[in-house]
């Protein structure tokens, strides 16, 4: 049986098809992200959904639904299957009686970025790419460096100079060339793009290559499996570039096509951003399809300092399709929530993860989330990576 049932790439806007056997970035016609297609009919025919749980743990147990043809090209550090924890204490405290956290801090390099980069680097290896470059708010750089090192691929990283020290050190420790930028990820993206064009580096920027989202989508498969092939009522997700949000929504669509879900009730997706950088929240409130570039972005949650995502229209699409909402929280609320989840549940969350708890409390007050709804927060990384704040 085939290791992967991947078929092709298609433009998320115009539908133009691209080959998965060639190096591709984004749509050459309309310059929007590409998404990966699979022969889901064949997957349904050949794979039993209940087989996955019997396989060795990790993201690659879902290999039929990932884009790598040859198992020899998989570059893994043991990512995926992050714990889904019931938050009894915290749930009692805030009157959310079916509250869960998907704690992504157990991933290699301490964040959910490992999921996207295992997929992207594995596919890069399969396509014969020798050197990769990335602009990053922090954790994606650390993850790329680690997976590139394991794959024997050269890595170059541009990150803001005030990125948490852990991200800078881990990237250099894995042998990556790190350039600290006087600016935000948007400026880092410009510099990475220029270097990529000038020197032939392959740019792994969020959604400027098609495969990081494939790794991230597995969070959606894991949730469905953990909840007995049903989906939660509400997913609260900290959103910078939006790969995980878009990836999970893609997973839910695939699951529906596969016929693996017990019901077709999709979650309401909640985007959480910091008040100091909330382009999606602003666009959502305006009913817009695209975000304006956010000026003077600032927040303690470095992963949320993304003034404008390249895939903003896809983020907005998920919000509208899911009857979701976008919420901005203050840094004070993030830090208070970080302490709260630590005290009640023993989880040292990344500030981005803590932001989801702060947002939930707002949504409970506003009765947008009801006490008996099944709610999943995403803690996207370990608080241990942010000790300099």
């Amino acid at each position: 049986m085939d290791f992967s049932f991947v078929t092709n790439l298609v433009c998320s806007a115009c539908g133009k098809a691209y080959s998965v056997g060639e190096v591709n970035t984004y749509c050459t016609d309309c310059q929007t992200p590409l998404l990966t297609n699979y022969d889901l009919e064949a997957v349904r025919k050949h794979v039993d959904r209940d087989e996955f749980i019997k396989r060795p743990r990790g993201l690659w147990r879902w290999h039929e639904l990932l884009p790598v043809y040859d198992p020899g090209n998989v570059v893994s550090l043991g990512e995926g299957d992050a714990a889904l924890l019931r938050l009894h204490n915290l749930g009692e405290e805030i009157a959310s009686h079916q509250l869960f956290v998907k704690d992504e801090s157990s991933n290699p390099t301490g964040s959910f970025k490992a999921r996207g980069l295992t997929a992207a680097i594995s596919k890069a290896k399969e396509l014969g790419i020798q050197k990769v470059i990335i602009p990053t708010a922090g954790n994606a750089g650390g993850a790329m460096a680690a997976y590139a090192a394991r794959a024997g691929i050269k890595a170059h990283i541009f990150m803001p100079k005030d990125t948490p020290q852990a991200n800078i050190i881990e990237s250099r420790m894995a042998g990556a060339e790190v350039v600290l930028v006087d600016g935000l990820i948007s400026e880092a993206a410009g510099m990475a793009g220029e270097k990529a064009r000038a020197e032939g580096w392959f740019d792994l920027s969020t959604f400027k290559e098609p495969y990081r989202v494939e790794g991230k989508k597995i969070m959606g498969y894991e949730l469905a499996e953990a909840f007995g092939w049903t989906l939660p009522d509400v997913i609260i997700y900290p959103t910078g570039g939006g790969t995980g949000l878009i990836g999970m929504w893609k997973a839910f669509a695939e699951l529906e096509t596969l016929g693996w879900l017990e019901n077709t009730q999709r979650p309401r997706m909640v985007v959480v951003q910091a008040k100091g950088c909330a382009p999606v929240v602003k666009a959502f409130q305006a009913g817009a399809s695209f975000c304006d570039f956010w000026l003077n972005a600032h927040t303690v949650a470095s992963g949320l300092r993304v003034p404008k995502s390249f895939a903003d229209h896809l983020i907005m699409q998920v919000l509208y399709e899911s009857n979701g909402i976008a919420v901005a929280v203050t840094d004070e609320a993030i830090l208070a929530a970080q302490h709260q989840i630590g005290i009640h549940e023993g989880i040292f969350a990344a500030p981005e993860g803590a932001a989801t708890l702060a947002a939930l409390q707002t949504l409970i007050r506003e009765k947008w989330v009801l006490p008996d709804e099944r709610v999943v927060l995403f803690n996207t990384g370990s608080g241990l990576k942010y000790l300099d704040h």
Partner: protein
Amino acid sequence: MGTNILYIEDNPDNMILVKRVVEAQGYTLFEARNGLEGVAVAEREEIHLILLDINLPDIDGYEVARRLRKSSKHTLAYIPIIAITANALKGDAEKALSAGCDVYMSKPINIHELRARVEGFVSVPKEQG
């Protein structure tokens, strides 16, 4: 009368891409390959919207925006300007807006967003008829 858009851009690939998009919408595109030429075209022609690259070979896009806003041709004081840059330098967006641009877009140019932004300022000619 048609709706005229001026694109000030030295990169031929971007020029071709944008030309294809706006002409498909029914707009007429005027092209300028550098900042000074852009200011001259804006002052000479009846332009309704300007797309402005920031990294130009002579004067940069900020200076172009400032000159347009101070032009003796008074309509240029309030003509919509969309800045389009590779945002390779710190604070490009802030500088573009304070120089007088109305909106900031970064490259690569998502053509669906470009269409929406352009239509937000000047209505689609094909729909008028």
